[in-house]
């Protein structure tokens, strides 16, 4: 079922071989009919590769995303906040695992994907290349970054590839507390001392624009969108999701009494949407290229964990081999 090495019922296939064009047509009909594609189904190579790229990027984002908030676990300002933050970051690790699992059904191993991440050849969401200098950043990330992530993730629960869709359903269920705990932190700060209010406003100032950038480039300039939508890997465009996020989040900021750092932000009565100012795509490109404030630091942390843990992983394998050998001898 889930690894390339698995065999089917053997070499004696019960079906007649079909030509590529027919297979492609059948595949697209399934997708058009909102049927799921499962691991051993025939799929175009490009579909497989796009999925591997997208799912692994998503997985890497969860894993790297453990670091900016993990930064505050040991300094969480109350025991309750500490417990909640540990549970949240633990969830993110779990989400990475669900996604690596889904990608592994497509014929790539977790080790290969991790190697790509650590070598710097795989991408992950650029939002995690920003620092978290204050406790309020933990709140802002939960409220804005998880908020944006949820917006991206819910449509993927209906994507064409079964394992990816099912992983997303699981993730979305768990994600609901992540955003709430972030907003709760922001509320506590906004209603607190003047210093706490300033801390919250400062965090919003720093996380607002990067959160908008999370939805990716404008539709006009986005390379992958058209094909991904045909294959129902992507269900809404970048701009559609970004607009939805702004419309939902601005009233939340108003409720908090905080100001969104966009002088051009206004409500447009005609379209019933918020209009926002221009996004600095240069900053997005810089961060994507590796020149954000924390790119090197994030990857270094992951490399270090991986390197320093090598002897542990090898020891576990060595012990398991010894055990098997002993059992064989005893048998």
């Amino acid at each position: 079922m889930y690894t390339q090495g698995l065999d089917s019922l053997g070499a004696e296939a019960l079906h007649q071989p079909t030509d590529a064009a027919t297979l492609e047509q059948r595949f697209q009909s399934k997708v058009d009919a909102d049927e799921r594609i499962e691991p051993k189904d025939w799929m175009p190579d490009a579909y497989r590769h796009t999925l591997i790229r997208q799912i692994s990027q998503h997985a890497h984002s969860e894993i790297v995303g453990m670091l900016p908030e993990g930064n505050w676990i040991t300094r969480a300002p109350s025991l309750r906040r500490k417990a909640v933050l540990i549970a949240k970051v633990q969830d993110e690790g779990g989400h990475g695992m669900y996604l690596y699992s889904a990608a592994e059904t497509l014929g790539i191993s977790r080790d290969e994907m991790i190697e790509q991440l650590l070598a710097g050849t795989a991408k992950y969401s650029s939002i995690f290349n920003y620092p978290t200098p204050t406790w309020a950043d933990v709140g802002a990330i939960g409220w804005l970054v998880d908020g944006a992530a949820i917006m991206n993730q819910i449509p993927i629960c209906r994507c064409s590839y079964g394992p990816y869709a099912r992983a997303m359903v699981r993730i979305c269920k768990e994600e609901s507390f992540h955003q709430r705990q972030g907003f709760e932190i922001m509320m506590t700060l906004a209603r607190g001392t003047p210093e706490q209010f300033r801390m919250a406003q400062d965090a919003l100032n720093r996380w607002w624009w990067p959160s908008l950038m999370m939805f990716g480039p404008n539709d006009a300039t986005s390379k992958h969108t058209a094909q991904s939508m045909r294959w129902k890997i992507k269900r809404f465009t970048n701009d559609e999701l970004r607009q939805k996020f702004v419309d939902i989040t601005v009233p939340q900021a108003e409720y908090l009494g905080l100001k969104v750092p966009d002088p051009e932000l206004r409500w447009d009565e005609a379209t019933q949407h918020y209009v926002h100012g221009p996004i600095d795509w240069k900053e997005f490109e810089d961060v994507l290229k590796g020149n954000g404030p924390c790119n090197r630091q994030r990857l270094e942390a992951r490399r270090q964990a991986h390197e320093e843990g090598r002897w542990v992983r090898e020891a576990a394998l060595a012990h398991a081999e010894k055990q098997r050998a002993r059992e064989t001898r005893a048998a």
Partner: protein
Amino acid sequence: MSAAAVNPTADVRIGYATYLGDTSLILAQRLSEWVGHAPALEEDLALANISLDLLGQARYLLSYAGELEGKGRSEDTLAFLRDPSDYTNLALVEQPNVDFGQTIVRQFLIDAWQLVLFEQLQSSTEPRVAELAAKALKETRYHYRFSAGWMVRLGDGTEESHQRVQAGLDELWKFTSELFAPGGADEAAAHAGIAPDPAALRTAWLANVEPVLQEATLKRPPDVNYRWFGKRRQHTDHLSHLLAEMQFMQRTYPGAQW
């Protein structure tokens, strides 16, 4: 447990809850340092899980201690606003992680102890302590399974893993005498009949420890007469650094709600 010779005073009960709570809290803090940095994702989740269990124990116990004290101190007041010299955790738990091997050794030695302790505390005449022990015992059974499993994998894994975990064991063994030593809140609690005599736990603890060391091909280090006990407020340098980090926010913004 022997029949109460003396009625437990509030101080004895507060002291005991604080000692147990501090120990679980500091160990939870140490484990939480691993989140995002463990050798494999699965171990990240496993260590976070143990940290959350211990943190839950700490919150329960420190809340209870604050309640008994009756001066309005909450779990947070006790955790974030007490000086290192007022903490009564076992010195073993404040020792640094160093590497996964030493982390596992520290965890294993404590799990083996909590297993014995909580089993007996289930029948404590202190209902709240008995309640905590019953819940914590289930958690500890899983922690012990985890840490004992890793002691064996690392002890009987590769040459490198064996050396590292033996080194961790050699380094931490001296802190285990405190688990059974007199002079702390546990001894006072035993005299008051609400907890087992710490010295009496040693045999059962060794029964949890030695077979695992053997299977792990590890050498039990020689016992030493190490006398600096966290439960008597004689901490190593590590505690003040750990608390400086943990307490930073509340110390920097006094009176704020979080």
